[in-house]
């Protein structure tokens, strides 16, 4: 494998490490991007030169140390370079979710007081121009993709290349730049990331170079990452994980970061790049598995038989082979044959042929999904992290991987569980503060540096693994006093490919009820195969046979809940299939696709009332926001159905 030589610990900021990489790893690839159908590589030396030219250009335009620079766009090498360039100047990059609507973006840029914004394209320029009256601090915008912008007023708008050209022309300020880089310290702010937050306005998490580098350094050692590794950067740049993987770990280990051509080509880019280190939220793994399942259902008899036979075998012995546990000779032989016929080609199709380390986090992952990838020989593990922790709180070591835990504390992390069951941690990665919100900082981080995660969980006896139950504030009591953990139940529902999203209600009530969102890909394909005609999402969602299927899923969840006496009270008595998909544009989900309970309860109050009143149907009208900010209405009469629950008496009898 490649080099394991790490940059000296004395290098305490990302720009200093970039300088080191440009010499020590000069010829190794650092960034990759597909331009006009062909992958282009940039070496560490080239990346440093590009970033420096941009940094000099920023100085020329008047960027001063301490300024904030907003970064808006999909993953592009130039945007990553812009982050490094800002840091060289002593300024702070603030990556922003590129799919936020103008209002959300305005809030973040205004709160951060960004003077400069480096954006991807015309779409983002237009968005910011539409709210520029409310962004008094914003002085200049720099764009990467010039298309459609030719005729815009260029007084305060610049092309990326033009800024670099300014920088190259004004190279006499190179010494000034060198001095800025040298004077930066590890305690200086490295990046400011706005957490999507399930409640209220986003908060700006301030992370120092020390935070980022300690997290990146220790996690790289934990998983033995090196310069020969490669990743595909496709998750939002505003998300802490992407910053750690594509900037922190990439700089420390010297591995290359490839950017997909566009969001839609992600899967084919994955296949072409064949990363060795892959991170994805459970949703991505779920979608991949759903697409495989759909395609297998359309396949011929022989293929179906091959797939089923070998997958059954893989599920039995695959994870053990991966963990290096003893497995019989014949089983190994059959697994090798399966690898040749099924697993190998399948992994290639999924773009995972070379993945030696895969991580998932953010939400619980379905055990079937998790086992599926491990059975194929993909070393998929779970980690538990937060923006405030510079990602890592717990991780699963090789050989101790299970679907129901999130692993042991990462190197340097201390864990404790308080009397209410909430998980706290303390580590060198713990954030500095919430920007301009000292009272919020004090609420989250105590005087000794312990940070509350907001999640309820417990440490498993014997193994020392952490298990997360739910959001601490969501764990409630039902009217009869039994435990109510909505996320736990919702995740059980979501493990069915037909169900995309679920919201369970029941706190303070005498029974649990659920909202269900169908997965259009999976249910649509099923409808096609069964000759069920439908004109819209709403119509398909309300189809009686879809209700039949969903009811079967709900009842299966009820049976599994009934097995645990602590959670048996959370069985779902009544459910409704929603007429529209829950959407971040409507504020129903966060930008990272987490359910926002209170907002949903508010928007759909009449439906909840109907669920508990015993009505057979309910008329619902919901306002929706389109991506361009316009609003419309979707209305439908929704059926409400009862699901069978396993009663306490029957359980007692059984």
């Amino acid at each position: 494998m490649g080099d394991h030589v790490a940059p000296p610990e004395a290098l305490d900021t990302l720009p200093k490490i970039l300088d080191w990489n440009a010499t020590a790893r000069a010829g190794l690839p650092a960034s990759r991007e597909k331009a006009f159908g062909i992958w282009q590589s940039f070496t560490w030396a080239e990346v440093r030169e590009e970033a420096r030219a941009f940094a000099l250009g920023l100085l020329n335009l008047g960027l001063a140390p301490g300024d904030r620079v907003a970064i808006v766009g999909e993953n592009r090498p130039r945007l990553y370079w812009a982050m490094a360039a800002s840091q060289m100047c002593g300024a702070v990059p603030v990556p922003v979710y590129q799919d936020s609507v103008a209002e959300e973006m305005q809030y973040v840029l205004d709160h951060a007081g960004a003077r400069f914004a480096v954006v991807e394209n015309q779409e983002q320029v237009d968005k910011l121009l539409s709210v520029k009256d409310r962004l008094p601090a914003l002085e200049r915008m720099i764009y990467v993709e010039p298309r459609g912008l030719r005729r815009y007023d260029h007084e305060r708008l610049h092309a990326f290349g033009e800024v670099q050209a300014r920088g190259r022309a004004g190279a006499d300020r190179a010494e000034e730049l060198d001095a800025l880089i040298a004077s930066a310290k590890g305690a200086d702010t490295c990046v400011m990331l706005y957490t999507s937050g399930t409640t209220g306005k986003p908060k700006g998490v301030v992370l120092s170079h020390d935070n980022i580098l300690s997290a990146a350094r220790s996690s790289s050692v934990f998983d033995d990452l090196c310069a020969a590794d490669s990743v595909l950067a496709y998750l939002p740049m505003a998300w802490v994980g992407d910053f750690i993987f594509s900037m922190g770990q990439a700089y420390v280990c010297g591995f290359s970061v490839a950017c997909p051509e566009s969001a839609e080509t992600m899967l084919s880019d994955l296949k072409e790049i064949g990363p060795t280190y892959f991170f994805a939220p459970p949703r991505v793994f779920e979608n991949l598995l759903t697409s495989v399942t759909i395609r297998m259902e359309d396949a011929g008899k022989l293929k179906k038989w091959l797939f089923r036979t070998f997958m059954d075998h893989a599920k039995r012995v695959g994870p053990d082979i991966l963990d290096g546990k003893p497995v019989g000779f014949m089983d190994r032989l059959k697994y090798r044959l399966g690898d040749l016929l099924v697993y190998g080609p399948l992994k290639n199709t999924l773009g995972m042929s070379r993945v030696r380390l895969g991580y998932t986090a953010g939400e619980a992952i379905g055990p079937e999904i998790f086992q599926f990838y491990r059975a194929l020989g993909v070393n998929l593990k779970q980690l538990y992290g937060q923006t405030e922790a510079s990602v890592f709180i717990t991780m699963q070591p090789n050989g101790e991987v299970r679907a129901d835990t999130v692993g042991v504390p990462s190197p340097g992390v201390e864990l404790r569980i308080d009397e209410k069951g909430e998980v706290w941690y303390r580590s060198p990665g713990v954030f500095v503060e919430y920007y301009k919100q000292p009272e919020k900082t004090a609420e989250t981080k105590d005087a000794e540096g312990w940070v509350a995660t907001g999640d309820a969980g417990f440490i498993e006896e014997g193994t020392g693994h952490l298990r997360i139950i739910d959001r601490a504030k969501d764990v409630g009591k039902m009217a009869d006093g039994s435990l109510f953990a909505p996320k736990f139940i919702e995740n059980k529902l979501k493990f069915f490919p037909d169900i995309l999203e679920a919201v369970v209600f029941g706190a303070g009530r005498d029974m649990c009820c659920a909202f269900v969102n169908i997965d259009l890909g999976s249910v649509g394909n099923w409808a096609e195969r069964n000759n069920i005609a439908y004109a819209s999402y709403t119509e398909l969602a309300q189809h009686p046979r879809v209700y039949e299927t969903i009811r079967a899923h709900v009842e299966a969840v009820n049976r599994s809940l009934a097995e645990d006496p602590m959670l048996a009270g959370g069985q779902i008595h009544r459910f409704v299939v929603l007429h529209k998909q829950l959407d971040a544009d409507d504020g129903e989900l966060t930008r990272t696709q987490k359910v926002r309970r209170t907002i949903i309860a508010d928007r759909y109050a009449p439906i909840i009332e109907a669920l508990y009143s015993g009505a057979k149907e309910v008329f619902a009208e919901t306002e929706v926001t389109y991506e361009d900010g316009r609003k419309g209405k979707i209305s439908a009469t929704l059926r409400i159905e009862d699901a069978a629950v396993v009663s306490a008496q029957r359980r007692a009898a059984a």
Partner: protein
Amino acid sequence: MKDMGQGFVTPDGRRIGGPVMEVKNITLRFGGVTALSDISFDIREGEVRAIIGPNGAGKSSMLNVINGFYHPQEGEVWFRGQKRGPMKPHQIAHQGIARTFQNIALFKGMSTLDNIMSGRLTKMKASMFSQAYWFGAAEREETEHREAVERIIDFLEIQAIRKTPVGRLPYGLQKRVELGRALAAEPSLLLLDEPMAGMNVEEKEDMSRFILDVNDEFGTTIALIEHDMGVVMDISDRVVVLDYGRKIGDGPPDEVRNDQAVIDAYLGVPHE
């Protein structure tokens, strides 16, 4: 802008040049039916020129005359200062005129990439022999053309469907691929036959954006036929209005919009 002398400047600051194409007193008959009668107008360098009119007004016939596919019984077509005689379609293509069709005319079984590549046909010079064995000139040529095609794919943001057979694509995307194929010929005059027919609002917005960007980035002169008045008024510099084969209006969108004859043609005239 009323003065149609030697060019003008549009409200958004684009410089429009002299006439690229002039049609003079065109009359086209099919047997006893007169599809176009005595129509004259011009298309200027760098503008977006729209031809609009209700159903059966003669819009497509007009485009086919410009395209050289129909030969009018009366009148003249001048292209870049030359009077044009009857021509074959490939001769028209060599003059730098490309078009798209109302009912998409792509090769359904071929990929997006190959369809757009087919638009480069007029620019390929290697012999059949060297193409068949793909060596020497043919190899170099294909690399060059592939690059041109990739630039179009990037421009139209269709990377994700590069290798998808076009028959499997939704209608809106097929229209975009067709535009790509027309662009592949690097035309100086691009004719679009109802580029937005059958599209939803979002697709129309995308297509409008692409048409404006083509005009802006490549300086391509564009003549388009469209049904949807709203879209036309937003993106074109000048508009010709046809009704029952006659020209009833010609001018900038705002002028045409308020023209009584145009309003009558679109909304109908109350019976006395």
